[in-house]
């Protein structure tokens, strides 16, 4: 049993700097929670840790082995890296807790880095609604382009470039989408309506590529036959499952995010209408810092 657990926890391809990064973020967050001791941190903390742990699990445990040798598990891995994990992390608004837990030099350093004009400028460009949507969909299409996908699964360097670019873009996109501050609070806090348009704009292309893969009569990605599968399974079933994962849950995330944004808009409206009665469920706009 213990051996089995150890086998699952051992990274298939260890990236020590990545493990260290996850450990530092988790340690800062736990320390922040301990310092703040606020009951209202509990739910966000759960979302944060589920998001962080799921992203870690699909990259630095034995799950990665299956993701490399099974198309549908690879699609599930990207669903977590690009959608679910970053979504939960952004939803938990971890900046304040992380800042409370990080050593002073680190939180100061990060704030200083974010304030540098080139960094702030690049961030503003990446979070522009059109560019953000184009990157979100563009990366999915780019890495699923059959010839690109072929090389990415064969080259260790490209494989990690693919996974990490999905993770970073996922964080950027959902950070932009789920920003709880009042629209206009920062240059990258766009109106709720605009954000919902972006959420719905990224849905049809994801449905299209997912449906294309799921319904394709022939093999679209031969690299899984080239590399061998983790266990014998019909290539077409593998592909159909992968297509469905790209198609349905990925698009569903836009619907879920829309509901969250509608609620957020409602909270903003209500707190404007009756300023004396603070919206208890409102997110903590003051605590969120610009990256």
């Amino acid at each position: 049993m213990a051996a089995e657990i150890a086998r699952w926890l051992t990274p298939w391809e260890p990236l020590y700097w990545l493990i260290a990064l996850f450990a530092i973020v988790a340690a800062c967050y736990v320390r922040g929670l301990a310092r703040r001791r606020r009951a209202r941190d509990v739910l966000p903390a759960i979302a944060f840790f589920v998001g962080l742990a799921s992203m870690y699990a699909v990259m630095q445990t034995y799950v990665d082995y299956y993701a490399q040798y099974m198309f549908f598990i690879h699609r599930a891995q990207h669903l977590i890296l690009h959608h679910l994990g970053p979504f939960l992390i952004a939803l938990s608004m971890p900046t304040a807790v992380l800042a409370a837990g990080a050593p002073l030099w680190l939180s100061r350093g990060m704030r200083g880095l974010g304030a540098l004009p080139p960094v702030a400028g690049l961030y503003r460009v990446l979070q522009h609604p059109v560019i953000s949507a184009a990157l979100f969909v563009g990366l999915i299409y780019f890495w699923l382009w059959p010839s690109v996908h072929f090389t990415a699964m064969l080259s260790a360097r490209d494989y990690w470039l693919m996974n990490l670019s999905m993770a970073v873009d996922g964080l950027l996109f959902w950070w932009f989408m789920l920003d709880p501050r009042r629209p206009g609070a920062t240059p990258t806090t766009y109106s709720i309506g605009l954000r919902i348009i972006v959420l719905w704009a990224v849905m049809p292309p994801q449905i299209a590529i997912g449906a294309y893969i799921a319904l394709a009569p022939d093999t679209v990605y031969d690299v899984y036959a080239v590399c061998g599968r983790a266990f014998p399974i019909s290539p077409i079933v593998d592909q159909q499952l992968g297509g469905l994962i790209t198609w349905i849950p990925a698009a569903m995330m836009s619907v879920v995010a829309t509901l969250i944004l509608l609620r957020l808009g409602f909270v903003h409206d209500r707190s404007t209408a009756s300023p004396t009665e603070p919206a208890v469920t409102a997110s903590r706009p003051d605590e969120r810092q610009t990256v």
Partner: protein
Amino acid sequence: MNHRLPRRLFVVFALAATALLAACSGGEPEYNAHDIEGVMPDLAFNLTDENGNAVEADDYDGRLKLLFFGYTNCPDICPATMARIRAALGGLDDTTRENIDVLFVSVDPERDDPERLAQFTSSFGPRFVGLTGSQEQLKALSKRYRVTYGYGEPNDNGFYLVSHSSAIFVFGPEGKARLLVNQEQSVDALRADLKKLLERVD
């Protein structure tokens, strides 16, 4: 608050996208197969050959090497691929052919002992060598080339399927990774690639 992105940023993005496309399209590919030079590491392994001797990659130095992962009970891909390689080699002259080794690595050591491997490879010709090893040795070699294998559930007769890579990996005389040949490539295209590789080597 500035929600409008300056026009020049769009220009920068358009230029970047064009540059990326230009970089990706590149020139005419030299080989029919995928060129994996520099993408994959040099050939290295510790295995047992069909005569029961421990062998290393260095033992095959000086010749072009075609590496294939399979198992002798394989109902389709392995015999078909071996037959394709035999056909491709058949069109070469004797001296050229003698500069090529075909390494058939069985990932099913449970059933494929050296004797059985020798029987399997002998039906394809003298250039074919059967290799296998412990799970540890096989895992090390397959992971090195980012391929894998797995075993299905045995049926009532104890027969089980093995999933494995369907590609032929081609290595240069010094063990440098050169080409990856997949199932779609024709015998003629494979032969042309091998000829070209040997010419460049000489």
